[in-house]
């Protein structure tokens, strides 16, 4: 008995994110255009949000007068030095936790205890310990980036395929060779994705540190603008921070693509 032929309905598809170029920028532009329109037309009051084009003008003015650089340069140095210390110590401790049972048993609870402390709350203490100068700012950023890096690193070391380690042992590789050639490269993907989180935390703490006893720096600039209720300048500072965040994330993305080419 012939029956009506019809195509089998398609039920697959989806659940596989693909890169859509330009979507992010379009959303951004749309949002800015909306705010620009709202602030100009008046249905967003100028106490709520500044006019985006005014913020852009403020930024351009800063760049022209050189103020942008006087604030950005010390901030970048603080972020770089602080997170370099925090991240490298974090990776070292994380690898040790991953490799040695005693270090794990001793330090994991300690790290768990330090992790949830809002580092900003410790700032006055840091000023007493390290002085009001740069050292306390480095220390704050270093401590803030240290804990998430430790957690990401030892997680990554734990996730290294044990069969590869077993293989290394079965070929009589030296302990140091196994760590250098099998464990560390195997943990690299996890360490790099932990770095994204750590550096974002670093930027947050940078601003916090600069709100206390800093003459120059993005954080100081924002604090100043805030206390004068100068929304254009405040948002100009926020934009700089966002750009900084996007930039670090982009740099890590590049590093991932270069170092993890083997993942395809």
């Amino acid at each position, binding site marked *: 008995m012939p029956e009506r032929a019809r195509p089998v309905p398609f039920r697959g598809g989806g659940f596989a994110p693909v890169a859509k170029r330009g979507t992010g920028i379009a959303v951004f532009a749309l949002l800015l255009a909306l705010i620009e329109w709202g602030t100009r037309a008046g249905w967003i009051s100028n106490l709520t949000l500044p006019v985006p084009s005014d913020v852009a003008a403020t930024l351009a003015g800063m760049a022209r007068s050189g103020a942008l650089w006087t604030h950005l340069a010390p901030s970048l140095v603080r972020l770089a030095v602080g997170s370099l210390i925090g991240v490298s110590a974090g990776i070292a401790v994380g690898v040790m936790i991953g490799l040695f049972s005693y270090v794990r048993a001793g330090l994991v609870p300690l790290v768990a205890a330090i992790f949830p402390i809002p580092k900003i709350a410790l700032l006055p203490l840091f000023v007493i310990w390290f002085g009001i100068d740069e050292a306390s700012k480095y220390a704050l950023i270093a401590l803030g980036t240290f804990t998430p890096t430790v957690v990401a690193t030892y997680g990554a070391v734990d996730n290294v395929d044990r*069969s*590869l380690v*077993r*293989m*290394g*042992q*079965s*070929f*009589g*590789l*030296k302990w140091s*060779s196994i760590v250098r*050639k*099998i464990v560390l*490269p*195997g943990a690299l993907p996890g360490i790099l994705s932990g770095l994204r989180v750590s550096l974002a935390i670093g930027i947050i703490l940078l601003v916090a540190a600069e709100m206390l006893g800093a003459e120059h720096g993005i954080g100081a600039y924002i604090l100043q603008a805030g206390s004068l209720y100068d929304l254009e300048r405040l948002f100009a500072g926020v934009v700089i921070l966002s750009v900084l965040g996007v930039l670090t994330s982009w740099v890590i993305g590049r590093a991932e693509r270069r170092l*993890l080419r*083997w*993942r*395809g």
Partner: protein
Amino acid sequence: MDLTLQRIGHRYGGMPVLQDISLRIPAGEILCVIGPSGCGKSTLLRLIGGLERPDEGEVLQLGDAPEGCLNPLTYVFQDFALLPWRTVEGNISLVLEDHGIRGKAARAVIADVLARTKLSDFRAALPRQLSGGMKQRVAIARALAVNPAVMLLDEPLSALDAQTRELLMEDLVALWERQRFTGVYVTHNLTEAVRLGHRIAVLSRRPGRLREVIAVNRPIADRRAGDSDLDALQARLWDLMKQEALAADQELLDA
């Protein structure tokens, strides 16, 4: 170099997995170890190569490894265990670097083993670019590079499809013909056992004991798929194992 197992016993968390296994593995011969799943065949292989310590008994090595042997007891793993971030060449040089073989000497060894495993065109490929069969060839090439006295093969063909398995079996036979290595070949595949084993050790279900050791007299180079005496042997092995396999299948894993 011969290996002797003396009354090996092993347990995991109080549960015996191997009991009273005594075996002799003479040089130049391939011993296949078969048994139902969970009978401890892979554990036995890890004990033989020193990756685990037996709870009872010992594994003895008689005589010295031949000259030029870098790693006497060398494994080939079921999951290949290749470093995904190293090329084919890099994966082989990994096991040479610690022996101080670098540069020109390493390149010579690598070229030789890649030629023997028909991989010369793939020296710069990454593991993810290779098929399963090719990956296992790389692992075999890596094992050959250290000039092993004994090759310990842990279900080396189990992750491959039937056709690739047939091809690789032929390759293994050719490699053995060329250089008569000693082998311990753990498998659950009876066809592989009757094709590659000079002797076949049959283990019972858990706790694994030695049920029988069967010698296969036909030279391995002359064995083909569908040989009637091999088929008969395979049927006999299956008879030996069938009840055990059935019972093993119905056991709870951690009862």
